[in-house]
């Protein structure tokens, strides 16, 4: 189940600058594990205590995964996964 995972600028230190890497899995969690295998350290920037980090947005085929099961979101061959750090702040 090959999928494309698009990497934001700030995480490209883990992918040797690559804007996209290949992933593999039937759920988002499995895809993240597969990306972690080739790019150690990246998982910790996405997942915390077994859940998606609050200020990381991940989309499977343009769908915000928070609405489709979070880390258990199903993934199919050919899907595109986009990772975007949230733009947020506060005084």
């Amino acid at each position, binding site marked *: 189940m090959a999928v494309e995972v698009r990497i934001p*600028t700030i995480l490209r230190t883990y992918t040797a600058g690559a804007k996209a890497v290949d992933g593999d899995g039937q759920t988002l969690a499995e895809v993240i594990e597969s990306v972690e295998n080739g790019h150690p350290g990246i998982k910790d920037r996405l997942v915390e205590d077994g859940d998606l980090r609050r*200020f990381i947005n991940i989309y499977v085929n343009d769908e915000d995964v928070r609405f489709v099961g979070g880390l258990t979101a199903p993934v199919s061959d050919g899907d595109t996964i986009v990772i*975007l750090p*949230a*733009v*947020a*702040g*506060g*005084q």
Partner: protein
Amino acid sequence: MLKIGRVIYDQIVAHARRDHPDEACGIVAGPEESDDPRRFVPMVNAARSPTFFQFDPTEQLRVWRELDDNDEVPVVIYHSHTATEAYPSRTDISLAAEPGAHYVLVSTRESGHVDGAAGRSEEAPPEFRSFRIVEGVVTEEEVEVI
């Protein structure tokens, strides 16, 4: 240094005032490597809060895809503070994820709305400041309105 056009500068300030007392947020896009903020893109503050902002994740994906399609980057990422100075808060710093961007802060604490008793006026000059935020380090930079 941030060089920014007068029209876009005014649009950012107007957005901050319009959304006061909630925080306003958005970006100014420009061609990659140009460091030239040209396209004003106000964003929804999904938090609708006087003390917090967050781009709506669905809108952010749409806008970021437009950037990709146009070979643009968010040259400026702006938001307003409505009761404090125009300086990045600890939260702003910890969440800053675009080391190449100019982080613009506008404070509407003095100029956000007309309030005669407090001596406030819509005509009061806004606090408009720009910063680089890289790996937790904040560096203020000059703003030149052109």
